[in-house]
C-alpha cells in the first residue's frame, strides 16, 4: 500500500458516487476540449481566410463595378505599372469572355454594349451548352447588385458560360485553381488552343481531359477539369490570357488585374499606391478582404466565444473537483484524524487527497475526450451558424450579385472563399484537423492543472484537522 494505491482505492470507495462525479466531470471536460478544438479550428480558418484573400487587391476599369459601362479597358502597360508599386508581389491579368451557344447568340448580342465595363466583355460563340438553367436566374439578374460581379457582370436572359483568360494558374479572384483531373495549361503567357473546364460544364458536355470543343469555330483541347466548389464557378472555362485576348480581338486589354500584396499590414497602403499609380479615372482598386471583413470578424467572435466557453468549462471542472473534495474531506474527518494520530504528516494526507482527485479527473478526461471527439464538429458548426445568422442578410444579397453576373469571375470566386459559413463542411474538415493529439493533450494538461488547483484547497483543509478528531463520535 502506497499513497497512490490508497488514493486509487479511496477514489473507488463509493462506486456509485464515483461514477456520478466522473460523469459530471466528463461533461465539463468534454465541453472544455470541444471548445478548445473549435477555437483552434476557427482560428485556423480565420488565418486561412486572411492569408488567401486578405492580401489580394482587384483592379477593375473605372466604373467597371457598375452597370454603366464606360471607362477604358485595362492594359498590359498598366499591369507593368502596378507590378512596379512597392510591396506588390505579383500581378495576374485576366480577360473575361462570354461564351454563347451559337443559337442563343442572336438574341443576346444586341445587348452587348449595354453592360459594363466598357462593353469590353466580348461575346464569342461556342458549341458548349451552359451547365446552369438560365430560367431560374433570369429574375435574379434584375436585382443583381454590383458587389459580386467585379467587372464581369452582365444582364443577359440566357445564361452564358464564363470564359476567362488568366495570366497564371489562378481563378479570377487570384485563388489557385483546384484541378481535379488532367493538367494545367502550362505556360499561361502564350496563346494555346487548350482550356480548363469546370466540373459541371464538363459533365453537361461530356468532356474529359483530352476532349475537344470549339470557341469561335476554333478547336480547343480540354487540358484539365477544375472544381471551384460551386455551381456557378464550375460553369466556366479558363484559357490562357493571350488566347482570350486573341479570341476577343483585343490584344493587350485586360478585364481585371489581381494584385497580390506581400503582407496583410501593407494591403491598405498598397491599395492607395496602386490607385494613385493608375489614376482614379482609369481604374478602381478594391480589396478582396473588404468582402470578408464581416466574415472574419464574426468568425473572430466565434473564436472568442469558444475561448470563453473553454475557460468557463475548465473552471467548472475545477469547481466540481473543489466541491467534491471538500465534501470528501468533511466526510473523512475522523479518518484523517486517525491517520494523524498514527503519525501521518500533513503533506502525506494532502498528497493522498490531491492524487485521489487526479484519479477522478483522469477518468473524467478519458470519457470527456471521447465526448469531445464526438461533439466538437457539431458544436463548432452550431456555434458558427448561430453566430453568423445576423450576417446572413448581407451574405445573401451578395449571393444575388453572384447570381447575376458573378459567375463570370471576380465576385464569384470571392464567393467561394467568402463562404466561411456556407463552407461549414470546410470548417468541419479543419475541426477534425484541429482535434490533433497535441491540442487535446494541451487541453487535458490544462484540465489537470485546474484540477490540482481545485484539489489543493481541500487538501490544505486536511492540515487543519486535529488528531483528536479520532476520539469524537462518528
Amino acid at each position, binding site marked *: *500500500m502506497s499513497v497512490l494505491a*490508497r488514493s486509487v482505492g479511496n477514489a473507488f470507495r463509493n462506486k456509485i458516487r464515483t461514477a456520478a462525479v466522473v460523469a459530471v466531470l466528463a461533461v465539463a471536460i468534454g465541453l472544455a476540449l470541444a471548445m478548445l478544438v473549435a477555437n483552434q479550428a476557427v482560428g485556423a480558418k480565420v488565418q486561412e481566410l486572411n492569408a488567401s484573400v486578405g492580401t489580394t487587391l482587384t483592379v477593375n476599369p473605372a466604373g467597371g463595378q457598375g452597370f454603366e459601362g464606360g471607362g477604358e479597358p485595362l492594359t498590359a502597360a498598366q499591369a507593368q505599372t502596378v507590378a512596379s508599386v512597392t510591396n506588390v508581389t505579383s500581378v495576374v491579368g485576366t480577360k473575361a469572355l462570354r461564351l454563347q451557344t451559337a443559337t442563343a447568340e442572336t438574341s443576346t448580342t444586341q445587348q452587348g454594349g449595354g453592360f459594363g465595363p466598357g462593353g469590353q466583355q466580348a461575346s464569342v460563340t461556342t458549341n458548349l451548352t451552359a451547365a446552369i438553367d438560365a430560367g431560374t436566374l433570369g429574375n435574379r439578374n434584375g436585382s443583381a447588385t454590383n458587389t459580386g460581379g467585379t467587372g464581369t457582370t452582365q444582364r443577359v436572359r440566357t445564361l452564358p458560360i464564363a470564359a476567362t483568360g488568366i495570366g497564371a494558374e489562378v481563378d479570377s479572384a487570384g485563388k489557385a485553381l483546384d484541378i481535379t483531373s488532367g493538367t494545367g495549361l502550362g505556360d499561361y503567357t502564350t496563346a494555346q488552343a487548350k482550356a480548363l473546364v469546370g466540373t459541371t460544364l464538363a459533365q453537361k458536355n461530356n468532356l474529359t481531359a483530352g476532349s475537344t470543343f470549339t470557341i469561335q469555330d476554333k478547336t480547343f483541347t480540354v487540358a484539365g477539369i477544375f472544381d471551384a466548389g460551386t455551381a456557378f464557378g464550375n460553369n466556366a472555362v479558363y484559357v490562357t490570357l493571350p488566347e482570350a485576348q486573341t479570341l476577343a480581338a483585343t490584344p493587350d486589354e485586360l478585364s481585371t488585374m489581381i494584385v497580390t500584396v506581400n503582407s496583410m499590414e501593407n494591403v491598405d497602403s498598397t491599395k492607395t499606391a496602386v490607385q494613385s499609380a493608375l489614376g482614379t479615372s482609369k481604374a478602381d482598386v478594391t480589396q478582396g478582404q473588404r468582402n470578408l471583413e464581416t466574415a472574419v470578424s464574426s468568425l473572430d467572435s466565434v473564436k472568442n466565444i469558444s475561448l470563453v466557453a473553454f475557460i468557463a468549462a475548465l473552471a467548472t471542472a475545477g469547481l466540481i473537483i473543489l466541491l467534491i473534495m471538500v465534501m470528501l474531506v468533511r466526510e473523512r474527518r475522523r479518518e484523517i484524524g486517525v491517520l494523524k494520530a498514527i503519525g501521518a504528516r500533513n503533506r502525506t494526507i494532502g498528497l493522498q487527497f490531491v492524487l485521489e482527485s487526479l484519479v477522478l479527473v483522469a477518468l473524467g478526461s478519458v470519457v470527456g475526450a471521447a465526448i469531445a471527439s464526438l461533439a466538437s464538429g457539431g458544436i463548432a458548426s452550431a456555434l458558427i451558424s448561430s453566430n453568423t445568422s445576423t450576417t446572413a442578410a448581407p451574405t445573401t444579397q451578395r449571393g444575388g450579385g453572384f447570381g447575376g453576373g458573378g459567375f463570370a469571375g471576380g465576385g464569384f470566386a470571392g464567393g467561394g472563399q467568402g463562404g466561411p459559413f456556407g463552407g461549414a463542411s470546410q470548417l468541419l474538415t479543419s475541426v477534425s484537423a484541429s482535434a490533433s493529439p497535441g491540442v487535446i493533450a494541451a487541453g487535458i494538461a490544462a484540465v489537470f492543472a485546474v484540477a490540482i488547483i481545485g484539489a489543493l484547497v481541500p487538501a490544505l483543509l486536511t492540515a487543519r484537522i*486535529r488528531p*483528536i478528531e479520532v476520539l469524537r463520535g462518528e
Partner: protein
Amino acid sequence: MIVVKDLVRQFKSGDRTIKPVNGVSFELEKGSLASIVGKSGSGKSTLLSLLGALDKPTSGDVVVDGVSLAGLPDSKLTEYRRRDIGFVFQQFNLIPNLRAVDNVMLPMEFAGVRKAARLKRAKELLEQVQLDPEKQSRRINRLSGGEQQRVAIARALANEPKLILADEPTGNLDEQTGEHIIELLSSLSRDHNTTILVVTHDRSLAQKTERCFRLQQGRLTEEVKSGLHR
C-alpha cells in the same frame, strides 16, 4: 521515563466547564507496566490522549525522556506520535476499506519502512495477536469486534514505540484471548523495556500490572497493591 506535571484539560459544555483531567501528576519508569481504572466518563481516554499528543492540555506538561511536549511544534508532535507512541484506541479507529495487514503497515509506511519489510513485520505482528492468517488480508469491515481490536493492537506495536497507550485493549476479547494480549504486553515491557499504560475496567488485568492508578474527579491516585508484583 515519563513525567506528568499538573496536567489539566477542561471542556466547555454549554455554559459550564468540565475538567475530566484536573491536576494530574505522576511519573512512570521506563519499561513499567501500569494501569488506570475509573468510572465511565471519569476522563481516562482524555488523559491518555494528552499523553499521546493527540490533544493539548489546558495547562500542565508531559515530559518524555526529558523533552517537554508543550514546547514542541505540531510537526514534532506528529513525529512523536509516529515514532514513540503506540496508541490502541477504545474505538479501534482502523481504516475500514483497507485490509487488516494494510492497516498494520500504515504507521511503518509513514515512518519510511520499505515495503517488503513492513509486510513481513505486519504479518508477524498479526500472528502475535493471534489473528488467523486467512483473516489478515480481509478488509477491516469484514472482521469481528475482537478481531478488529487485535489488529488495532498490532498496529500500535508496528513502529516499536517506547510508550504504548492502550485504551481498553481487552474490552472485546474473550477471557483466553484477553489473557494472551496481557501476556504479550507484559512481555514487551519486560523484554523490550517498553513503557505500557493500560486503561481498563478489567479487575484481573489491573491486578496484573505493576502499578495501578485510579482516576476520580479529575485526580489520579495510586492504588496500593495488596499482593506481590506479578
